[in-house]
């Protein structure tokens, strides 16, 4: 059975109902992360969030954006790139997944180290917990310490504490210059050490990744910054310019996110208490963390 609510209120009603009837739910949207939810109880009813879609507010000058959880990363990317901005998630798996799933799974990407992981980019959200309560957390401004941080709690909780219905994210200006080099790092002469120094230094690249025996380096910044970075890259070995779209191909073929392992995620007493507070009947994605469910 699949339910596909069109509004957050409708979704809250469905979860309240599931809570009352003790119906287990498997939360999905575009199905991008389906492989990771294999461990969810097979008898769970499907709750499809993809109907909650669309950008709610985007003021380019504020560098913030609020969208419904079922909005795809690609839609956000299209809207923001029209203003020379991006939400620099660039998650593994590509841009076809939803914003909600990307944050619920805290999926990183090749630029997370330089531009921020999901927990650093979320500034607020709306979600429905396992009792059907519709909850607002954080806000739409970039700095906010009002109240306990439910936003951080929900990011990366894999839908086990609540179903995200809306997200507000921090944006950044796209770098003026954004280019990628494929480098055959020299075997000797201290090239590896220089690469490490470069990665940690003031001219650090946006992303760096080993690929087919070469090292892909993505440089971003203003023209003078990138020119200086480029000079360093050329000292590391034979460097060839490379289409920046290669990063999308790499993201799409990478099997990440791997999904929560059969870990102790819910094993420690504190996490167990948190879980009980937000999903007392254990109906949200039961089993996804590898935990037992009755």
């Amino acid at each position, binding site marked *: 059975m699949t339910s596909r609510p069109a509004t957050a209120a409708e979704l809250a009603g469905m979860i309240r109902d599931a809570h009352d009837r003790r119906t287990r739910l498997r939360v999905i949207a575009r199905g991008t992360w389906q492989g990771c939810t294999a461990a969810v109880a097979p008898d769970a009813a499907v709750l499809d969030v993809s109907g909650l879609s669309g950008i709610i507010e985007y003021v380019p000058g504020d560098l913030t954006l609020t969208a419904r959880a079922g909005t795809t990363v690609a839609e956000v990317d299209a809207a923001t790139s029209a203003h020379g901005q991006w939400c620099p998630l660039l998650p593994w798996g590509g841009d076809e997944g939803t914003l909600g799933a990307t944050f619920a799974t805290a999926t990183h990407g090749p630029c997370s180290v330089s531009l921020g992981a999901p927990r650093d980019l979320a500034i607020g959200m709306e979600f429905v917990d396992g009792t059907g309560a519709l909850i607002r957390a954080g806000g739409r401004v970039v700095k906010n310490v009002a109240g*306990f941080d439910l936003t951080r709690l929900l990011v990366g909780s894999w839908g086990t504490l609540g179903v995200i219905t809306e997200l507000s994210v921090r944006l950044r200006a796209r770098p003026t210059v954004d280019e990628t080099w494929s480098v055959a790092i020299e075997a000797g002469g201290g090239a590896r050490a220089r690469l490490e120094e470069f990665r940690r230094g003031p001219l650090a690249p946006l992303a760096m990744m080993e690929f087919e025996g070469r090292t892909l380096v993505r440089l971003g910044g203003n023209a003078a910054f990138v020119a200086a970075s480029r000079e360093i890259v050329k000292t590391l070995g034979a460097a060839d310019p490379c289409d920046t779209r290669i990063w999308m191909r790499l993201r799409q073929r990478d099997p990440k996110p791997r999904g929560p392992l059969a870990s102790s995620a819910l094993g420690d007493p504190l996490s167990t208490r948190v879980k009980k507070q937000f999903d007392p009947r254990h109906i949200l994605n039961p089993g996804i963390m590898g935990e037992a469910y009755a």
Partner: protein
Amino acid sequence: MTDLPTELSDIVGARHVLQRATELLVYENDALPGYHKRPRLAVFPGTRDEVIAVVRALHRARVAFVPRGAGTGLSGGALADDVVLIGLQRMRRIISVDPAGRSAVVEPGVVNSSLTKAATPFGLHYAPDPSSQSACTIGGNVAENAGGPHCLKYGVTLNHVLAASVVLPGGDVVRLVRPGEDRTGYDLLGAYVGSEGCFGVTLDVTVRLTPNPEGIRTMLADFTSVDDAARAASAIVAAGILPAALELMDHGTIEAVESSIYAAGYPRDAAAVLLIEVDGALAGLDDDVSAVQRICRECGAREIRTASDAGERARLWQGRKKAFGAMGRVAPHLAVQDAVVPRTKLAPILARIAEIGARQRIHVCNVFHAGDGNLHPNVPYNGDDPDEAARVHAAMREIMELCIAEGGTITGEHGVGLDKIGYMERLFPGESLDAMCRLRDAFDPERRANPGKVVPSHRCREWLAAPGAHT
């Protein structure tokens, strides 16, 4: 069974337990003027084991407590109203500094600027820099998710804490770690940072250290109208430049600073100044400087000064960092606000704040993090004058309502504490406040840590059902 003071004295030594009213006097306030609360007693553990033993003793006695660092907070978060105050200022060891890993492990009582001092020989620093950094502690910074001018580029405390060991109010010790790419589990560290002492007591914190920038350019742009300065600040951010800091000070603040010992050479006839710092790699830095200068001029800047050396830079910053202190000269009391608004609305909101100030006949001094839209409309006043105090409080309420209505929030870095708890119901619906209570209950089921702060307790659905232990 021994009484609590004796039991605590046995743990930390009698001289580290204060009970007499005269001794407790100094702990009746934090840095938020206008509030006084007398702790029942104060205890000062000196080691990790002592902190744990103190918390466990309080747990056995079912007694509530408030953890406190340096007491520099601006929301009344460290005030203890007839409960036990746990002072952590003796916990000031820097346990280790790892230059290669760019991190450090510190006890909660380590002073923010001491940590940077310890990192300096390695070309590193601790990035969050609240204005009280020469006194405030890392434990307090973690509790408040403290910010500071340089958080615009580098992020707030949350972004710089890698792990923490915490003793929960029930006596269990937990290790909270920042989730990485391959680590699953709830981000309990993220929930803990900014929990304002309501979730437990920090035993140690692992922080990220940031490499010192290759180059720093500090500019002071002066404007003949606040509106122009605010528009310039919004325009710089909108242009995609990410300054390390972007601060606005208005005429009232400039006057207060220039009349004090912290005089920084700000132009006294300016309506507002922007203190702008860009930093990073030397390559490309001057292009950012030119862009900032061009935008300031386009928005009507009269003059833009660039600090020529470290001394001038420090002087420009001193005025900003000591601005709150400088206001102490103007009047005996100071009302401090911390609202955040969308950056594009800075100019109209500042105009509305000026209107409110004029109507209530109060003196609003703005000094704030313009780059984040984090306002600090501060009002020096005489609290002994009941009429003036009433007008100040009315104006503060109006300003807060305005910021909420414009899509902002009530606090960007100071915390809710006691001071802003009354606004929480304006900002969040009941179900959200209840959810916050439930998160707190997971950490502190008996609600003994920092009672009466952050979320109004009547908003907790099961408040009456919970074991009442708020003695």
